[in-house]
Each structure stands twice: as structure tokens, then as C-alpha cells.
């Protein structure tokens, strides 16, 4: 489990997060939602170990601040928002960087064909020889996901769950690839790993997340199952506009229709 208790983060003199409570259990996709500037990215960066924090963040019971980079790399992989490279690496070379970290492979030996398998997973089969710099933003984002998948190829290693931390993983993807990427996340969780994803699209959140945490002004305002947090009043207040939650006729899955731009 990844757990944050009474988490606070300051950048310079500015308090970005305070008294955040957060948990991501193995087997779950936990989505972080909230308006711009609510602290979503800061939260996932703190959990990734990029920012000094107060309070506590633990991964499988170990305090993050005391983990060596190499040990943390065994337990979780992090997908950043966008990565630009200044040197002409091929797609295979970029994805292979995932094999550097922690323990890739299937738990017995490292598979040389892992980069290719990861690329096929993100719908980029045949892209291994292309230059990363020459790909579109969405393709680059999926190459990075393939790299991250290589790092934690098995969701459970030596009976301990591993985690994928995804910062806006579908922000520059078309709808087909949004679904592909979120299915990968879902499958990773179903095989015993944990996924934390910052998401903007509330309907995708409902469709793919097991748990949702709603950030508002640097605090965790609500958390629960999608059904629990998808309430008109809560969302309208957090996003500061009129929102109406409906239900897809043949089931109980909620969906969201924006009503007006201004509350």
C-alpha cells in the first residue's frame, strides 16, 4: 500500500499541500482529480519522491524519505507528464532505459524482448527503430509508458505489490489510446499492483478507477468509490461550475454532463 498521512508540501514559502490523507491499495486504480492548481501534480510528485514533505508517505510500510533511489525504483515507476529529449535516442533505446531501474523482467530473468513487448502493449509495435524526437506528443507519451512498464513489468515482485504512478497519462492521447492506456493501468491493478493516476476526464475516471480522491485547494476534500464522489453538489463546488451527474441507462455507472460554464 502507498499511504500518505497528514501530508504537507511547501515550495519556497508557498504552502501547496496541507493535511492530505491518501491511500492507494494494491489491486486498485486510484485516481486523483481536481481543478487546475488544486495540488494534484504536487501530490503525485511528493509520492514519487520529488519534493520534500512533512507528515508521512509510506510505500509497503517503508517511509519514502528514507528510501534509496535504487530501492524506490524496485517498488514503483513514475510516468512524468511530458519528456523531451535533446539527443537522438531511438524508441528502443528510450524504452530500454526502463530496464535500468530496480528489477525488470518476470521475476526470474530479464527478458531481452521486454521493450518490444511493452511497445506492443501501448500500440506502438514496429516503432522500435524510430527516433523518439520525431514522434508526435501522444506517441512520445506512450513510449514513456512503455519504458515505465518495463521498470515494473511484474505487478507483484517477491510477494510485494509494485506501483505505477501516472501523472496525466492520457493528456495528449486520442480517445482510442486513452482507453488503451487506462486499460493497461486497470490490468496492472487487477494483477495485484497498485496504480495512482492524475486524471482530468471525470468520465474516464469513473470508468477505470476503483477509488477516487478529490483535491481542492491543496487538501484532499473527498475520497471513495467513483459512485461515492460523483455527486452534483461536491463536483459543482470543487470545479466551480454547474455539473450534473447522470447514469448510463443500462447500468449504474454515473456520467457527467456539464451544464453551464459558470456556477
Amino acid at each position, binding site marked *: 500500500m502507498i499511504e500518505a498521512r497528514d501530508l504537507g508540501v511547501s515550495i519556497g514559502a508557498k504552502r501547496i499541500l496541507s493535511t492530505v490523507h491518501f491511500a492507494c491499495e494494491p489491486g486498485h486504480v486510484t485516481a486523483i482529480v481536481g481543478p487546475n492548481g488544486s495540488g494534484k501534480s504536487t501530490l503525485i510528485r511528493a509520492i514519487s519522491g520529488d519534493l520534500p514533505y512533512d507528515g508521512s508517505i509510506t510505500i509497503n510500510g517503508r517511509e519514502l524519505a528514507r528510501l534509496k533511489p535504487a530501492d524506490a*525504483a524496485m517498488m514503483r515507476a513514475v510516468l512524468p507528464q511530458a519528456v523531451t*529529449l535533446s539527443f537522438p535516442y531511438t524508441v528502443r533505446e528510450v524504452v530500454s532505459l526502463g530496464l535500468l531501474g530496480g528489477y525488470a523482467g518476470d521475476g526470474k530473468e530479464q527478458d531481452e524482448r521486454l521493450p518490444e513487448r511493452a511497445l506492443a502493449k501501448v500500440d506502438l509495435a514496429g516503432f522500435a527503430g524510430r527516433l523518439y524526437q520525431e514522434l508526435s506528443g501522444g506517441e512520445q507519451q506512450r513510449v514513456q509508458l512503455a519504458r515505465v512498464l518495463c521498470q515494473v513489468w511484474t505487478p507483484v515482485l517477491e510477494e510485494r505489490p509494485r506501483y505505477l504512478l501516472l501523472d496525466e497519462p492520457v493528456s495528449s492521447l486520442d480517445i482510442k489510446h486513452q482507453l488503451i492506456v487506462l486499460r493497461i493501468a486497470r490490468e496492472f491493478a487487477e494483477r495485484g499492483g497498485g496504480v495512482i493516476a492524475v486524471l482530468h476526464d471525470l468520465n474516464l475516471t469513473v470508468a477505470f478507477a476503483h477509488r477516487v480522491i478529490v483535491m481542492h485547494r491543496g487538501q484532499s476534500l473527498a475520497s471513495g468509490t467513483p459512485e461515492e464522489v460523483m455527486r452534483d453538489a461536491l463536483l459543482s463546488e470543487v470545479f466551480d461550475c454547474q455539473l450534473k451527474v447522470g447514469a448510463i441507462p443500462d447500468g449504474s455507472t454515473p456520467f457527467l454532463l456539464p451544464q453551464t460554464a459558470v456556477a
Partner: protein
Amino acid sequence: MNQPAQMILFRRMAEAPEGDRSARARFVLALLVLLLFAVSAMSAATGASDASAIGVLQSWLGGGAESTLSERDRLIINEIRLPRIALGMLVGAALAVSGALMQGLFRNPLADPGIIGVSAGAGLSAISVIVLGHTLLAPVILVLGIFALPLAAFIGGLATTLVLYRVATRRGQTSIATMLLAGIALAALAGAFSGVLIYLADDRQLRDLTFWQLGSLGGATWTKLMAAGPVIAVALAAAPFLSKGLNALALGEASARHLGVPVQRIKAVAIVAVAAATGASVAFTGGIGFVGIVVPHLLRLIIGPDHRYLLPASALLGASLLLLADAVSRTIVAPAELPIGIITAVFGAPFFLWVLLRRRGILDL
């Protein structure tokens, strides 16, 4: 069946999975080793004295009495050309690897110790030792002997690199524009102080300094080599331990850390290695520019940017190119010689402009 080595290499290259350039890189490394041998032999045979290549080889193979070399030729080769070749190789390798390391560290193909002022900082310290060595800094010379010059240059280079890194890097992201501009400012500052020292120098020192500033492998002796060699060798030996870390660093500092790379340690070792290699090179051969930018850039076009291959290939090609430039500098106005810095600048500066043109769109300067 016994297949020639290069046939096997060719087949490996053809069979390499798409996007995997390691077989090609190993092939190029092998070619670069051959090139370095050829260039060294040629360099040993070239110069104002016409000692022949065959005679040189015989002399190398310890051909004692049956050698066709005269005593004078043997002296020229053993005491003048060989130390010069050795120094040229070391300095060429040091400059090229420094460039590649710094480019990896700053995540930018335009970072080069010569361009961003590191050489100027190292130069200032070196000039201080040369000019003030008999007066103000005499105790230092007394204690450190021949190591005073490379050590001073190392400290100057290190200080400049640290200031640059502090100024140009915020939250793990290095701004190329800030880095280049800060480099201009630091180089100007170092230049101003160097100017003061040159003003204080006597006539003999002045002449030495002028040639030193233009860059030259002339005056290489085994003694100088003993002072520069270990410093450069240690710096070069650090490179293989940095290669994987630098590859990861291409993704940015945060992503490298997420992959388990000890980013701070990699950065610290790389900065010290660059300062040592640049410092020792500048101390003994002066302002030889552009090797650090031309060599890694050319190699990235051929074998890609993977530092596991880029760093050793840079060392080999840097050594070969500097020996070639030195051969040109010794023959073009023979029996006099042109400072080698002029040759590298004449070829390197237009190359740098070409790189800029190619990258204009990406750089966003």
C-alpha cells in the same frame, strides 16, 4: 569454418533488432581503434625532420642496431614526437570526453567546456601560476612542483563549472540560454583577470602565454606528460561508471532518480571529471577549442547518443582528430608550426555554426 571477425560483426549488425545500435557502435569502436593506430604512426613519421614511417615502426619495435634511423632521428622521435603524440592523444581524448560528459550532464549538445567558459576559468588559474609562479605563488610551486599547473587549472575549471551549474539549473532543469550567457559572462571575467596578469608578465612570459593561448602541443616532454597524464587518466577512467547514469539523465533528473540512478553522485563525479580533464588539458596545451563539440556530435550521428559507446568512441576519435590537426599544424608552414588551436578553430567554428543551424528550430533560443 573460420569467419573473419568483421564478417561476424557485419552479420550481427544486420541481425540487430530494430532500434538497437549497439552492434553498429561496437563496429565503429573497432574502426576508431584502427584509425588511432594509423594516425599515430603517421604522426610519428611526419614533421620537419624526414624520419620515415618504416624507420619509425622499426624503431618502435625495438629494432636497435639494424634500424635505419640515425641517432638524430631516434632522438627526434623518442624525445620530441612520441611525447607529443602521447600528449596529443591524452588531450584529444580529454577534450572530447569532457564535451560529451558535459553535454550529457546539461542535457544539451551545445555544452562544451570551451564554449561555456570552463576552459577560460581553467586558463585564468593556469596563467596565474605561469605569471606569479616566481613571486606570489612561489610557495605553491615549491610544494606541488610540476603538478601545480594542472592542479590550479583543475580548481579554476571546477569553480567555473560549479558557478555555471548553479546559475543555469533550476529544479533539475538546465536552461541552455542561461548557461550560454552565463558562460559568456564568466569567460569575459576570466579574460579580464587574465588580461591583468598578462599586463604584469615579462617579455619571455608574454611570448609563452601568447602561444599557449593559441593552443599548442609543442614543447611536450615526458615530464609534462607525467604531470598531465595521471589527472586525465583518472578523469577518463571515471567515464564508464557514468554512462548509464547519463543515459537516464537524458530523461531529466527526476526521471533518472525514479529509475534508481543516484543523480547527485553522477552529477558530482561528472563535474569533477570534466574539470580535471579540461584543467589538465588547458594547463599544458592552452586554448584548443571545439574538439569537445565536434567529436561527440559527429559520433551521435553515426552510433547514436548511448553514452556506453559515445564516451569511449569520443576518446578514440578525439585523440585521432587532435593528432591529425597537430600533423597539419606541423606541416602546413614547415619548418615553422602553426598553433594547433588555430586549426581546430578553423574547422570547429563553422561546424559549430552548422550544428546551430540544424538545431535552430529545436533550441528555441
